[in-house]
């Protein structure tokens, strides 16, 4: 069953999304690598278990979890992204993503919302922290 989603209007600073745990499966990482021109094991089409996951992939997959809980306008745009990589994550590892609303603001007709993201490994160590600023255009497309 898809997760319950929250609309922009109902998001307020401090709102926390349910944490999500997912395993960075070889097929999932391979699909990412294929998209960005990375190296995938040619025969299996998988990423090698135990090899490092590109850190931006960890962030992108954490965002995927976040977005599954969100209903944002189709006219939303990614304005800025801060990321801090703290510990390597290996293919096959399980990670838990946490996300919260940091700030909401509006300027010149552009609604903006900041999401704070953190990702932890199975040992509970923080492996990544990030902040994503998304703008939502008022004009309907």
């Amino acid at each position, binding site marked *: 069953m898809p997760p319950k989603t929250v609309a922009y209007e109902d998001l307020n600073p401090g709102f926390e999304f349910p944490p999500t745990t997912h395993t960075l499966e070889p097929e999932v990482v391979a699909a990412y690598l294929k998209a960005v021109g990375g190296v995938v094991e040619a025969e299996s089409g998988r990423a090698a278990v135990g090899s490092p996951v590109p850190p*931006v992939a960890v962030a992108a997959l954490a965002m995927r979890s976040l977005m599954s809980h969100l209903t944002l306008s189709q006219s939303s745009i990614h304005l*800025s992204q801060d*990321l801090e990589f703290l510990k390597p994550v290996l293919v096959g590892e399980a990670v838990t993503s946490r996300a919260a609303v940091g700030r909401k603001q509006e300027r010149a007709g552009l609604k903006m919302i900041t999401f704070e993201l953190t990702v932890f490994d199975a040992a509970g160590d923080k492996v990544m922290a990030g902040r994503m600023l998304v703008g939502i255009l008022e004009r309907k497309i």
Partner: protein
Amino acid sequence: MTGGPPDRLILTRQVTREAIRLYAEASGDFNPIHVDEAFAARTPFGGIVAHGMMTLAYVSEMMGKQFGEKWLSGGVMRIKFRGPARPGDTLTITAERQGDEIISGKQYLKYTVVCRNDKGQPVIDGQVLVAI
């Protein structure tokens, strides 16, 4: 330069419609601005554009190739998205050394980074840092 960290890093990547489609599948981000040509044509972008995180992946690849493990456990990106990357664009990503920065008592090499399309228009800019 010998021994020390490089003053300049550069990477070029071509954006293709296929790569954008693959990225949408891999990331689960099917915002129509990335995958629906008819929809995207009606937006201010006038056509489909690559995911911002895809461009960030190229920056991270460049830093990872240079710094390896240090990037994986001590990399920092502070990026603003300035303009669209479109299918057919060749992106040039350049990082220039800007000295060091201390964060929470830890020393980082600091680089300014910019990604431009073939027309020289900025796609992203910002800073990348790596702990040493």
